[in-house]
């Protein structure tokens, strides 16, 4: 426990053939915080996590994870990290209790404390009633709790969670996150990847990944305040036509429909954006009004992932 950061990545790169899955990633994850990886599928979240726990060797660059150098002797790292895979990876044909006991044995958890630790986890993660149930027959939320319990069994100071809630209902997700906050409170550093905006919002800090590159990072508030975009919300009876009209406005960055609302993004360098949108709509004979709004994390995401495409165009 020397450095300020649990994870420091310097130019971390992974190529699979011609595909650059992760590109020159710089990363500083402070200790004891929940750090989010937000990005669409294929943006390099899983690949990065796999490099950080020593499963994949980086093509270029390096990282320091809990004072262990990557690439290097990942063996030293394994007892210190807990890892939760995207897909449920515990044994479906073993009971909850058997799975926990197996993990305790694999991590050489002290024999004397083993039983107490397993009971403690069953209780903490609300699995007491399922202890004799086969893991494969449990609901998504229960499996998730079991997977989390298994990944923290050996009390690792760092947790790497790869889209842990992708197959879980909203209530279970909320419960899951309160578990994460409890762990962070106790000093565990947590790196969690997600493609849910509401989850990203709960993180202390987050990095947005797109096509293998980090396109933004900071606290959720910082990110919302520095999109470099005007955010305009339009309420329309005929949002489909309104969208077509707005898309035709020059320099428009993006239009997203949310039910009867439209979220419109225009670069900050455009003066008087509301007037531009309103006049375009009026000229088209649409009786709707646009007004300025503040950025949500989704707007941030749209703004930062659009940039490279715009520049390329």
């Amino acid at each position, binding site marked *: 426990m020397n450095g300020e950061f649990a994870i420091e990545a310097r130019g971390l790169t992974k190529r699979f053939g011609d595909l650059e899955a992760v590109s020159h990633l710089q990363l500083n994850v402070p200790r004891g915080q929940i750090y989010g990886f937000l990005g669409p599928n294929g943006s390099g979240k899983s690949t990065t996590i796999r490099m950080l726990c020593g499963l*994949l*060797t980086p093509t270029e660059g390096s990282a320091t994870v809990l004072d262990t150098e990557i690439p290097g002797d990942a063996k030293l790292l*394994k*007892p210190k990290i807990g890892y939760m*895979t995207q*897909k449920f990876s515990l044994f*479906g044909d073993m009971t909850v209790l058997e799975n926990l006991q197996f*993990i305790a044995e*694999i991590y*050489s958890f002290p024999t004397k404390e083993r039983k107490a630790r397993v009971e403690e986890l069953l209780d903490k993660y609300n699995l007491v009633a399922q202890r004799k149930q086969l893991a494969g027959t449990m609901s998504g939320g229960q499996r998730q709790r079991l997977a989390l319990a298994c990944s923290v069994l050996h009390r690792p100071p760092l947790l790497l969670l790869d889209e842990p809630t992708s197959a879980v209902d909203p209530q279970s997700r909320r419960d899951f996150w309160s578990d994460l906050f409890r762990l962070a409170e106790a000093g565990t550093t947590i790196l969690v990847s997600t493609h849910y905006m509401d989850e990203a919002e709960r993180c202390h800090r987050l990095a947005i990944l797109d096509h293998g590159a980090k396109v933004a990072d900071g606290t959720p508030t910082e990110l919302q305040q520095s999109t470099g975009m005007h955010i305009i919300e339009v309420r329309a009876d005929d949002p489909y036509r309104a969208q077509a009209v707005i898309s035709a406005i020059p320099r428009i960055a993006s239009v997203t429909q949310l039910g009867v609302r439209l979220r419109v993004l225009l670069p900050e360098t455009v003066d008087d954006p509301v007037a531009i949108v309103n006049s375009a709509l009026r000229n088209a004979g649409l009786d709707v009004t646009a007004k300025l709004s503040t950025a949500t994390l989704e707007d941030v995401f749209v703004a930062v992932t659009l940039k490279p495409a715009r520049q390329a165009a």
Partner: protein
Amino acid sequence: MKSLSRILAILRKEVRQLRRDHLTFGMVVGLPVVQMLLFGYAINTDVRNLRTAVADQAGTHLSRQFVAELGQTQVVDIIDHVDSPQQLEDLLRQGKISIGVHIPHDFDRRAIDRTRTALHLLVDGSDPTILGVAKQLSMMPIGFDSVNTIDMGPPPIEVRPYYNPERRTPVNIVPGLMGVILTMTMILFTAVAIVRERERGNLELLINTPVSSAELMIGKVVPYVLIGMIQLALILGVGRLLFDVPVRGSVVDLYLAAAAFIAANLSLGLFISTAAKTQFQAMQMTVFILLPSILLSGFMFPFEGMPQFAQWLGELLPNTHFIRLTRGIMLRDAGIGELLSELVFLLVFTVVAMSAAALRFTKRLD
């Protein structure tokens, strides 16, 4: 009409998927071709080049002429000349020859006197095909002139079948069957056991724990060694109780041989597990190994009767060597020391396959 277009849709989908599944496609094309070649060449009932040794105690012109004529039939391949019938028996037991020709010192006199057998063919009777060939050989005329061959009387050549005097098929089949059953179960069990964990994602969890690749492999393989030993006991027990198949040699030797064979198959299973992506692929690959293990190992057809290239292929299969070991130990009371080269092959095979699997396994994490 709607029904037809739906059927066509499914048909097209099926063909499309099949074309992308290279392994299945390979089986569709490869299996018939390979099978035809194997069956066509390997299934050859006119056995040739049976390894034969001669103990010519007569050493006369007549005996030498007989041996020369025997060689010219091409049915036998005379690989050795020894002094006594005991040495022939030794060679037979060690599996080095299939037929021993014993020509007694009074051969010339016996050949004229049609009431006595002129010479003996000592035959490894555990294989009925070889025995049949020997029977045909015994009809060969011993001729210094053609007149004598028309003479009445029993053939002057006596066939002495060793190891399976009652000529019962199970005695020949069971030792070989042991190898076939163990090949099938051992390769399949290990290959599937690991591929299943990869399919289910368990492996990604396991390799993130402090468990090393070696620990993981040993832990996964050891239970199957025990299962193999249990299977062996079952086959031996059933063979004994129902078919009265003997174990003439040492059971300890048999288990030693089986341990080496199981190890070889498990390593092969591990290797397959590193190559197969799905359990189905693992099964397909097992079939690829299993077929030649049945056809080319000497289990179904006498090894010596197969064409050279089939023999080379056969020599690479663990089952070929295991069948030689089991037939030797069970039927011919051979000690494992006499069959050492077969045992050594199995051990070398294990080391090679295991190393290849370990190399590929660590690579697959990347």
